């Protein structure tokens, strides 16, 4: 029997107090995510239970019990306090998926500071934009990523500490750098956890939009209430589960469900810090007897592409429950997983701003392959008319997904950007920016984004950011960036570029521009294809008509071209 039991019964009788009661939290009390994810689990008698089993790319393994997690997070918190980090200071985590990332997160929130996890593949420009916006006080990183920080350090007088977790004593520390070794640092047994309350800020995630710079999404400690219950009811996490969330904590899934959801439910989670390889992933599942696997459509499609012969080499019978996140899970992937693993990946829908799962498929509920599922109990979600901002009365109509505000993990603000935050709410509804329809049985069916943001491999990339980076290349005069369809990644970045006088289109220039953007922003933002053209389609007022380029890539009708300047 699953934790959720009957979905319909849960919807009828729902109250967020169910989650508060299980967590023994009373409104008005102190609530600290770091405490709930370590100290409380120890107090429940699980101090010696493995909480984190980590495996690196060369096979090295480290195991941390919940008591280790408690002590190490205390130690990191103590170290940060010693550097002068205050409550609500932003502390960035800029690391690969190493134990210091997972445990460091808890240490930061334990002292009431705000954790700012960032994807370690970000280039220096992407890193700078996010640190500058947050006025980050400290960054915890590895020596391999320090060069990127050093490159932008002069522009960041607000960044006081660069904490290197794998410092090489043979090399001198440079300006503002300090070494910290979690495994050898003296462990702090008794630690004064900062008394954060429900609305105390906990995490600052960055997410990309169509226009403008990435936005800092502010979450609070009360988000735990949503993250805990969705981990129990959607991911069905149970005490004896061995859990693998493949997401990087630089993104919200890896934090909400790779750190908070995993640890606050007291399960054993396994983390593989290595590049993708179907063989290695199956080996990992077999070795650790993974029971619950939370992954992403891009990875699932890569596994499909790798074929079924490789699966036969491994015993995957431990797998009990599978779920997916990041982009819509196509029906072929659902059907394939049921055939090869014996159970389907369940699609889950949510985003950085929602902090936890909003619409989902559930254990025991009928699955319609390709459907997002139904709203989580306690979440009122619908599809609204994009002109009137009112729910459609009929089923089957395509409109904007809309969610009634007020769930525990709803973002509280875009950092220093209240005007953009307010635009996310219309007529009493929160708008994620996606379009879908609802069928007669209440299942949601994803249609697409309502804006130009590119969803590549489950991560949002802003065309504006990529275009801005392209314009910094000496050869590029103008650029327009759109999504291009891709079997594995759903969408990839494609750039249309006009060149400055003196430059000629060539394969070498194409590669040079690709690498330029990759190093400035990230591998995700790197155009996978560049098309050199003489003129970009523009309106008479000079606005680039991206939708024409997009339509051509997707084989769609171009639509009204009456405002096109150079038709």
């Amino acid at each position: 029997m699953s934790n959720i039991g009957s979905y319909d019964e849960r919807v009828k009788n729902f109250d967020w107090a169910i989650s508060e009661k299980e967590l023994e939290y009373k409104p008005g009390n102190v609530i600290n995510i770091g405490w709930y994810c370590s100290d409380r689990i120890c107090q429940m008698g699980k101090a010696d239970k493995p909480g984190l089993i980590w495996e690196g790319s060369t096979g090295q393994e480290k195991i941390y019990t919940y008591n280790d997690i408690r002590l190490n997070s205390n130690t990191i918190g103590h170290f940060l306090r010693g550097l002068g980090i205050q409550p609500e200071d932003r502390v960035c985590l800029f690391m690969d998926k190493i134990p210091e990332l997972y445990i460091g997160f808890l240490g930061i929130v334990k002292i009431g500071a705000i954790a700012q996890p960032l994807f370690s593949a970000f280039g220096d420009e992407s890193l700078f934009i996010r640190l500058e916006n947050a006025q980050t006080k400290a960054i915890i990183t590895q020596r391999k990523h320090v060069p990127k920080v050093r490159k932008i350090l002069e522009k960041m007088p607000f960044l006081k500490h660069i904490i290197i977790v794998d410092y090489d004593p043979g090399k001198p520390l440079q300006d503002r750098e300090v070494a910290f070794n979690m495994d050898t640092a003296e462990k702090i047994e008794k630690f004064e956890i900062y008394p954060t309350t429900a609305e105390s800020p906990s995490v600052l995630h960055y997410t990309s939009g169509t226009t403008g710079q990435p936005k800092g999404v502010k979450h609070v400690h009360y988000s735990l209430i949503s993250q805990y219950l969705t981990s129990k009811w959607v991911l069905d996490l149970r005490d004896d589960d061995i859990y693998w969330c493949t997401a990087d904590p630089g993104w919200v899934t890896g934090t909400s469900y790779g750190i908070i959801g995993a640890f606050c439910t007291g399960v054993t989670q396994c983390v593989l810090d290595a590049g993708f390889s179907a063989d290695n992933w199956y080996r990992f599942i077999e070795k650790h007897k993974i029971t619950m696997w939370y992954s992403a459509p891009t990875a699932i499609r890569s596994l499909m592409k790798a074929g079924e012969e490789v699966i036969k080499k491994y015993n995957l019978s431990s797998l009990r429950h599978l779920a997916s996140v990041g982009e819509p899970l196509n029906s072929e992937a659902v059907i394939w997983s049921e055939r090869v693993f014996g159970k389907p990946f369940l699609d889950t829908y949510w985003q950085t701003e929602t902090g936890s799962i909003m619409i989902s498929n559930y254990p025991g509920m009928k699955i319609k392959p390709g459907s997002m599922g139904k709203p989580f109990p306690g979440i009122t979600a619908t599809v609204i008319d994009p002109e009137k901002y009112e729910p459609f009365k009929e089923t089957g109509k395509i409109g904007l997904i809309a969610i009634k505000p007020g769930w525990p993990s709803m973002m509280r603000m875009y950092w220093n950007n209240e005007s953009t935050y307010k635009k996310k709410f219309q007529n009493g509804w929160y708008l994620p920016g996606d379009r879908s329809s609802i069928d007669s049985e209440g299942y949601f069916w994803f249609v697409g984004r309502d804006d130009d943001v590119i969803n590549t491999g489950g991560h949002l990339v802003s065309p504006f950011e990529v275009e801005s980076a392209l314009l910094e290349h000496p050869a590029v005069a103008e650029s327009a960036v759109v999504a291009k369809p891709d079997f594995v990644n759903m969408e990839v970045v494609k750039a249309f570029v006009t060149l400055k006088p003196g430059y000629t289109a060539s394969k070498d220039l194409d590669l040079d521009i690709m690498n330029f953007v990759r190093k400035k922003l990230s591998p995700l933002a790197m155009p996978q294809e560049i098309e050199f053209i003489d003129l970009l389609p523009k309106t008479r007022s000079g606005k680039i008509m991206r939708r024409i380029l997009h339509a051509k890539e997707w084989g769609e009708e171009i639509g009204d071209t009456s405002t096109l300047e150079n038709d």
Partner: protein
Amino acid sequence: MEEMKDVIKDYVIKEYVEDDTEITYDTPLISGGIVDSFSMVSLKRFLENKYKISIPDDKATPEAFDSVNKIIALVKEYVKY
């Protein structure tokens, strides 16, 4: 072939390695997290430009790109001497 090994190794170090991580001809590049799946596209493009070849997408797998030696083996299939 010796020269090709060094050309490819040097390119990987120049483009994908930020610090002084040692890269050998057998260092796992993809499974070791040095070159991710998105960046693989640029590495493929480099090989195609450099050796005037075209590598079919279905051959450009993470396994085929997982070390300098494996990349050499792949490139050799398409290089015309």
